[in-house]
């Protein structure tokens, strides 16, 4: 009997180790999944916060310029396109860029509002234009 017990004990140890490694692997997989989700969520939060910050800054420039897009372009150090639209391009670190493939784009487009109001739509999208990060309308009274 004792000779049969000895190998079974070492077998039990092996089983214990296998179970421990299995539990470790399972917990590691779950934890890694949580870490990855957290990383994605944090990146989205940073993108949203920066998008809001840039849009607010541009909106205040638009208001400071009394709704004049050319003056807004001068304040934002960019140029007005032929379509009467202001476009600011950013790289993945939210630094202004003139590159062809920006990671984020902020667009200011005047919209038709009430007769006495000047309104502009501010839109922040990601580089592929697939995701709208932030949208708002800046308006000011002053065309009287």
């Amino acid at each position, binding site marked *: 009997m004792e000779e049969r017990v000895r190998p079974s004990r*070492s077998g039990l140890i092996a089983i214990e180790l296998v179970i421990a490694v299995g539990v470790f692997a399972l917990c590691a997989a*779950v934890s890694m999944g949580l870490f990855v989700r957290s990383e994605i969520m*944090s990146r*989205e*939060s940073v993108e949203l916060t920066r998008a809001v910050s840039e849009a607010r800054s541009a909106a205040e420039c638009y208001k400071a310029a009394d709704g004049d897009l050319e003056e807004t372009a001068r304040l934002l150090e960019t140029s007005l396109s032929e379509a009467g639209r202001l476009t600011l391009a950013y790289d993945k670190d939210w630094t202004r860029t003139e590159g062809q493939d920006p990671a984020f784009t902020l667009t200011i487009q005047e919209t038709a509002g*009430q007769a006495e*109001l000047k309104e502009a739509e501010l839109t922040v999208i990601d580089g592929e234009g697939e995701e709208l990060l932030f949208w708002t309308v800046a*308006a000011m*009274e002053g065309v009287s």
Partner: protein
Amino acid sequence: MKRGGSISGAVSLVMIFCVLCMAVFAALTMVTAQREHTLAVLTADRAQAYYEADRTAAETVAALERGERPQGVTLTGDTASFAVPAGGDTLLAVKVRLEDRGCTVEQWETVFAGEWEAAETIEVWGGAD
């Protein structure tokens, strides 16, 4: 056998410790990320609500300049005042002085409109008996 058992126990203990650490760190990371995301969404919502209120206020001022008296506007002499909800417990309080040509903005600021209660839980010395 004794030596093998103690090694196995030590390995298991280290493994349990590692698993616990990983689980705690993963949970803390997730909670922090969720709170950051909630804060970012709240900030975005507040910014959107502020600019919406700003637009509504601009429309109201334009209507006042046209000689109309929109709903919610209080006129005191030549001064008109009104407030627009700007998200959460904040209001965009506007006060304009009406003039012959146009008007002059005297106040255009967000104010807290929520209720608050003074803390009365700490006993403080109320002066000499």
